[in-house]
C-alpha cells in the first residue's frame, strides 16, 4: 500500500488532523533520547482504545509495522521506527481516568505524564512510588514498555512492581484486559510479562497502578567525599548495617561540576563524589537511623554530611540529581548513557574499570548512578559530528556493558535493550535463552508487526 492510501485510511479512523506526515513530523518522530534515527511513514494520534484497535487492525491487514510512543525519553532506541511504518503517539490519550483511593489504585491512559498523576495524588496524601528521572515528561505507557526505574526503586521496586493490570491492544487489534485492580488473578502473569517488553508484544491503552499513602516522614541527606571509593564503601556499609534506605544515589566530580554550573544544587565543586541518601517511613526512630547513617558516612571518610531541614532544601538536593543528565549534556554536544547494572557489592571495582575504558578511548565519562541497587549510568561524552568519536563511543559503551556482565551483572537495569543493545544481549544470554524469548514474541505477535527489530537479536535455530 502506498503512503497516500495509508494516510487516507488512517484519517478515516482518527480524523485528518490527527495523522501527521510532513517532513518535519517524520523527522521529529524518528528519534528519541538515544543516538538512533529512522523515519516512520506517518504518525497517528488516537483518542481512544477503540481507535488504537482500529489502527492496529488496519496495520495488521496491510502488514505495516507499528511503534507505540510516549515522550520518547527512552535511552535505548526503543521508540525508533526501525522499519518505518506507523508511529502511534499517545499525546491525546492523556487522561487520569480514575483515582480510587479506597482500593489504592489509579487508572490512567498511556499518555499521562508520571508527574501529572503524582501531583493529583498528592491532594489525597497518596503516592505512586517509581520515579524515573524524566518523570516530568515520561509517560505511563513508556514506563510500562521500558519497566522504568528511578532512585526510589532501591526500596520500592521498579515499574513492574506497581503495575497491576492493563488494557492491551494485541497485534491483531483485539482488545484484552490483563490483571486488574484485584491481585492474584488465576493464570499466567501476563502483566508481568508485558511490562518491560518494549512495545513488542502489546500496546497498553489503560494501566492500573498501585498507589499507597505517602510515607509519614522523610529525611534526605547529602554526604560529600574526597574519593569515589569512600562513597562506594559507604553504600555497602549502610546496607550491611541492615538499613535499606529509600534511595542511595551517587554523582561523581564531572557530574557535580556540570550540575553546579547549571542548577546550583549546592554541591561543592571540589568534591570527588556526593552521595544522596534518603530514608522514609514512620517518624518514630527516624532520627536515630539518620544519625547512624551520618556516623557511617563519617566512618567512611565523608568530609561533610548535610541533612535537608526543609522541603525546599530537600527539593534542591533532588534537583541536582534529577537534572544531572541535562546538565551533563551541556558539557559536550552528545552523550551516550550506559545502563549496566551489577551486584551492588561490585560497584567500586566496576567503576574503576569503567573509568579505564574512558581513558583507553580518550573520552570523558561522567557518572551518575543508583548506587544502592548497583545501577550505573556512565555518560560518555562526545561529538557525533566527529565520525571517529562516534565510532569510539559505541565501542566504549559496549565494553562497559561487557565489564558489567562479567561482574555478574546485566546490560540494562532500567532503560531497555531497544535497538542499541541487541548484540550485547549475548553478553548475558545464550541463544537458547533468546529462542525461549522468541517463543513469547511469536505467541503475541507472530507476524512481527509491533516494534519490529527490537530487543531480541537474531539467532540460528
Amino acid at each position: 500500500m502506498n503512503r497516500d492510501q495509508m494516510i487516507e485510511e488512517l484519517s478515516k479512523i482518527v480524523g485528518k488532523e490527527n495523522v501527521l506526515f510532513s517532513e518535519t513530523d517524520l523527522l521529529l518522530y524518528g528519534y528519541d533520547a538515544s543516538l538512533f534515527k529512522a523515519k516512520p511513514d506517518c504518525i497517528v494520534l488516537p483518542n481512544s482504545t477503540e481507535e488504537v484497535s482500529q489502527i492496529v487492525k488496519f496495520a495488521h491487514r496491510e502488514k505495516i509495522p507499528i511503534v507505540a510512543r510516549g515522550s520518547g525519553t527512552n535511552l535505548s532506541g526503543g521508540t525508533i521506527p526501525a522499519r518505518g511504518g506507523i508511529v502511534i503517539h499517545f499525546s491525546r490519550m492523556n487522561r487520569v481516568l480514575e483515582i480510587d483511593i479506597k482500593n489504592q489504585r489509579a487508572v490512567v491512559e498511556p499518555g499521562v505524564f508520571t508527574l501529572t498523576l503524582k501531583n493529583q495524588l498528592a491532594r489525597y496524601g497518596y503516592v505512586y512510588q517509581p520515579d524515573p528521572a524524566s518523570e516530568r515528561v515520561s509517560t505511563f505507557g513508556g514506563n510500562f514498555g521500558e519497566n522504568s526505574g528511578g532512585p526510589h526503586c532501591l526500596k520500592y521496586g521498579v515499574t513492574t512492581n506497581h503495575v497491576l493490570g492493563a488494557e492491551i491492544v494485541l497485534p491483531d487489534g483485539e482488545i484484552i484486559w490483563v490483571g486488574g485492580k484485584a491481585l492474584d488473578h488465576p493464570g499466567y502473569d501476563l502483566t508481568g510479562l508485558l511490562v518491560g517488553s518494549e512495545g513488542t508484544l502489546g500496546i497498553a491503552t489503560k494501566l492500573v497502578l498501585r498507589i499507597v499513602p505517602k510515607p509519614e516522614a522523610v529525611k534526605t541527606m547529602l554526604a560529600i567525599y574526597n574519593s569515589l571509593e569512600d562513597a562506594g564503601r559507604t553504600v555497602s556499609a549502610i546496607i550491611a548495617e541492615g538499613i535499606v534506605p529509600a534511595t542511595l544515589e551517587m554523582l561523581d566530580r564531572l557530574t557535580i561540576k556540570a550540575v553546579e554550573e547549571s542548577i546550583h544544587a549546592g554541591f561543592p565543586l571540589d568534591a570527588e563524589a556526593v552521595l544522596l541518601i534518603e530514608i522514609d517511613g514512620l517518624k518514630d526512630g527516624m532520627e536515630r537511623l539518620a544519625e547512624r547513617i551520618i556516623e557511617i558516612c563519617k566512618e567512611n571518610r565523608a568530609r561533610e554530611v548535610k541533612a535537608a531541614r526543609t522541603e525546599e532544601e530537600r527539593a534542591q538536593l533532588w534537583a541536582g540529581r534529577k537534572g544531572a543528565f541535562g546538565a551533563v549534556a551541556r558539557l559536550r554536544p552528545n552523550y551516550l548513557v550506559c545502563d549496566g547494572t551489577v551486584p551492588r557489592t561490585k560497584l567500586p571495582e566496576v567503576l574503576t574499570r569503567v573509568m579505564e575504558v574512558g581513558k583507553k578511548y580518550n573520552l570523558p565519562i561522567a557518572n551518575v548512578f543508583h548506587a544502592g541497587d548497583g545501577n550505573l549510568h556512565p555518560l560518555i561524552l562526545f561529538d557525533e559530528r566527529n565520525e571517529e568519536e562516534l565510532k569510539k563511543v559505541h565501542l566504549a559503551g559496549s565494553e562497559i556493558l561487557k565489564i558489567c556482565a562479567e561482574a555478574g551483572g546485566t546490560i540494562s537495569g532500567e532503560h531497555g535493550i531497544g535497538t542499541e543493545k541487541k548484540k550485547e544481549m549475548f553478553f548475558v544470554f545464550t541463544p537458547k535463552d533468546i529462542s525461549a524469548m522468541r517463543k513469547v514474541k511469536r505467541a503475541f505477535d507472530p507476524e512481527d508487526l509491533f516494534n519490529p527489530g527490537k530487543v531480541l537479536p537474531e539467532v540460528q535455530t
Partner: protein
Amino acid sequence: MIRTEKLISKMKEIVGEAHLIRDSDRLKTLRIDGKRPKVLVYPGDTEEVSRIVAYAFDHTLAIIPMGNGTKIEVGNPPEKVDILLSTQRLNRITDCDCDNLTLTAESGITLKEVQKRLAQEGRGYFIPLDPPFTEKATLGGIIATNSSGPRRYMYGTARDLVIGMKAVFPNGDIVVSGGKTVKNVSGYDLSKLLIGSYGTLGVICEMTFKLLPIPEKEVTVLIPFIRLEDGDAFVQEIIDSQLLPSSIDTLNRPAMERLKPPVSLTEETRYLVAIGLDGVMEGIEREISELRERGKKYQSLDPLILYSQEHQSFWSALRDFSETLKRQRILFLSFKSNFLISKGGEVMKRYEKIMSQTGIESALIWRSGNGILYSYLFPGRSLKSKMESMIELIRQLTSEAIKNEGNMMVESAPTILKKKISVWGEMRPEYQVMRRLKEEIDPRGIFSPGRFIGGI
C-alpha cells in the same frame, strides 16, 4: 508396556538406579487425582533435568514437576502422568550474597532451611516470603504456585521478590532469565511467566531472591471485634493510614477455633483482626498504642499483644491452617477468592451468609490488606450426596468475587468434585493469550497436561 520399560531404563541411565522409584505400590501413594505416574525420578542437577525433559519431549511423555508435594493437589485432574519429576535433590544454595541482598538456590531446598541459613549470616537476613507449609514447602513449589502468606501486605509476593531464574523448558533447553541485580530489563521477564505457572511451562531449577535484613523487632497485635462491620471499618482505616503493618488478616470465629496452638479469646469475640508489625523499636511502640486507640473507635474488645515466640507461633498456625486440618484428617474444601481491597468485609459477610444457608460450617481467613479471602468448608462425611449443592455453592461464591472485580479458584477439593467444576474460576479473554503462550512454549503439551486454567 515396552514403552514404559524403555522409559525406565532411560531414566536409570540419566539419574542412576538409586534415584528413581518404579515400585507400583510406592507410586500408588503418589497418585494425582487418581492418576498413577509410571516413574518418579530424582534428578541431581539441572543438566539431568534437561536430559529427562528432552527425552519426554522426544517421546511425548507427560511430566509433572514436584517439590515436597504440599500443593500437588491443586489444579484440574491431569490428563496423564508419565514422569513425576521430584526436585528434592536439587537442594543447594548456590550463591548466598547477603551484602548484595540476594540469594540464589535450587528449587528443591525448603524455604525453612534457607531462612535458617540466612538468619545466621552477618546480622541476619531473610527472604520476605511466608507461605503455607512452613516445614515442607520448597522454593520451587512456592514459586511455581505463586504461594504467599500474611506478610505479603508489606513485602509483596514472588513477582516482587524473584529476580532471576533458571528453568528447563519443554524442549529440554536450559533457559536463564534475570539475574542477581535488582533492576533488570534485559529481554523479556520470563521469570514472571513461570511464577504461578503450576508446572505447565517447564521445571524451575534455580531462583534468585531479593533479601532483607531481619527487622529490629516483630510484634503481633490481635484486635477482637463482635461485629464484622466494625472490624472491616477498622481495617480500612488502617490501610488508609500512614502506619506500616507487615500483615493484616481477619479471621472469623470458626477459623480462630481451629488455630493450633489456639489463641485465648473471650467468648464474645466473633472476628479477630491480626496485625503483624515489624520495623524499628520506636515505630512499633507507637503503632501498638495507635492501633489500640483506633480500635476503640470501632468498638473493639481488649487487644492482645504477642511477642517473640508467641508472635511466631501465631503466624505459623495461621499460615499452616490447611496443613493442620490435613494432619487431623478433617475433610475440607478450600477456595481462594480475590477482589477489590475495599470490598473484603462485604465479600466475607456474603460468603458467611451463602455458606450458612447451605448449612455448612466454614472458616474464613481474609488477607485484609490485599483483597484475598481463603475459605475452608467442612462438609462432613456425606460429600457425595451434597455434590449438587456444593457445585451451586461454588458458583455463588465465584460470582460474588467476580462482582467485585475478582475471581475464585478451588485450591483443595476431592477429584470427583473437581471434575465437575471450573477449578480456576471463570475464564477471562486474556486466556486466549495464555493458551497461545502454552502452545508456543510447550507445543507437545507434555508439562502437567490439562491441569491449569482452561485445560492448559
